[in-house]
């Protein structure tokens, strides 16, 4: 007998897995339904995928999302990398600095989003990508910071010391030793920041202007207008992209140290 198996744990766990996956499966299955109303199953078709590929608003929204996620991902990763290197050794107030950097993880996003909206209105910045990019960078920082920090902590400091003993200066040590060793952590951090920005709805919802609608904002207004297989098809594509990116990030993080 496995002592940890109390009665029902197995049954509850399987039920939870069903609960987690049924909505995903239903979503994907209905994206292949030919019927417009999405309620009656008529026949299997790829029509909705064809339709979203030629829909100009979806194309523009996808482009905006990608531009935003790339800019936010790169910005947040660079800032987080510098911060992680600076936080390597202990100093007074380290805990407080860490808490500030990680604050976006616990603050309710709706509050931060409306607060940022007020700041931008107060200083006269127009809504649009120019407002969204800095806001996204700010809340993506912890997502990039945590994997880089984890990688840095697992790194053997004697490798850097050895490089310096062999007369490498600081820059060469960083370029030839630290950076290559940190690389999987940096890529994992970038991927997480990228996905977080790509999936973000609330901040973009409040800060987007005319012409800067992102895919999640488009999906939200489409859901408000009614259920269509078109939304299922976009959702399915987004689901596949997010899962692929996260699995990549997971594997990068696991890369041998």
């Amino acid at each position, binding site marked *: 007998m496995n*002592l940890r198996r*109390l009665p029902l744990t197995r049954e509850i766990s399987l039920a939870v897995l069903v609960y987690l996956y049924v909505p995903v499966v239903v979503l994907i299955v209905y994206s292949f339904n030919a019927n417009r109303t*999405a309620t009656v199953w008529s026949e299997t078709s790829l029509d909705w995928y064809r339709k979203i590929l030629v829909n100009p608003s979806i194309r523009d929204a996808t482009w905006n999302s990608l531009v935003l996620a790339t800019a936010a991902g790169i910005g947040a990763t660079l800032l987080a990398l510098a911060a992680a*290197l600076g936080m390597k050794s202990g100093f007074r107030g380290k805990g407080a600095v860490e808490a500030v950097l990680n604050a976006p993880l616990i603050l309710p996003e709706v*509050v931060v989003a409306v607060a940022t909206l007020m700041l931008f209105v107060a200083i006269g910045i127009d809504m649009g990508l120019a407002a969204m990019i800095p806001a996204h960078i700010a809340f993506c920082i912890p997502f990039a910071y945590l994997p880089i920090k984890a990688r840095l902590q697992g790194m053997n400091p004697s490798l*850097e010391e050895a490089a310096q003993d062999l007369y490498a200066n600081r820059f060469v040590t960083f370029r030839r030793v630290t950076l290559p060793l940190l690389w999987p952590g940096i890529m994992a951090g970038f991927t997480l920041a990228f996905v977080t920005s790509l999936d973000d*709805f*609330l901040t973009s919802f409040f800060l987007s202007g005319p012409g800067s609608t992102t895919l999640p904002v488009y999906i939200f207004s489409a859901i408000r207008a009614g259920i269509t297989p078109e939304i299922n098809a976009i959702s399915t594509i987004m689901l596949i992209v997010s899962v692929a990116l996260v699995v990549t990030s997971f594997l990068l993080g696991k890369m041998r140290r």
Partner: protein
Amino acid sequence: MSATSPFRRAGLVGPALLVVLVLIGVPLGIMAWVSLLGRGATIGVDWTSAPSFANYTKLVWEEDFDGTLLFNPTYLSILWRSVWQAAATTAICVGLGLPVALWMSSLSRGARDMAVLLITIPFWTNLLVRNYAWLIILREDGLVSQTANAIWPFGPVQLLYNDAAILIGLVYSFLPFMILPIYAGFEKFDWRLLEAAYDLGANRRRALTRVIVPLAMPGIIAGSMLVFIPSLGSFVTAAILGGGKSMMMGNLIQLQFGQSRNWPFGAAISVVLLALMMLVLMGIALWKTRQEAKR
């Protein structure tokens, strides 16, 4: 490598810190200030109005024509719903998360990693998409509704746009946040201690209450924080599955910045939401220090 000098450190940490402070700290400060102001004619706030607590009293009392204050439960009921929905979500997540974490820890090494991945994959799909999937399942002409109506003899069953639908969506959104911390606690545990408990004559119930639950407690507390706080501040679930009828604080805030164009009132609700969150965090910190003191 030589210890980082304070200057170098400031140069490295400074930019990230500055970005977070300017783009998150400063806006929160502005918000606290705006919550004391009056609404404006064009942009939602009148920057020149005299500060007062009117937006906070509005949450409880409504001013009548002649200036007398009348109790108005509209906003309090939304606040109350947010709190109990978040609490119920947390409780359900504990109830489901504990057995799942226990089951995961009883698997073989490879199967455990697989289980962690299985639990996390749905969580990484877009929040909107996850809630939309429940909209499809629960909708009026959907399979579940039709089945429910066929079985249930007393009038039509409405599965969507109510508190139960929001609860299902919230649990679905945040369940992995509960499972993973509890599982992390179990993974490090030396399970021979449980064997010892059984050898010493403990029955299953005692093993559960004396060994497993205390062991899971730090994970349950961490998980509760990770589930309660985002549930309390959630917007998407109630917007999609509550259909405008069942609102939560997040939706009320959005409404003030959207249709109602009353930014100061929205800012006041935001401040209340942050205060509620701080209370929870402080409660947890207090619990932790007490636990430390016990040892």
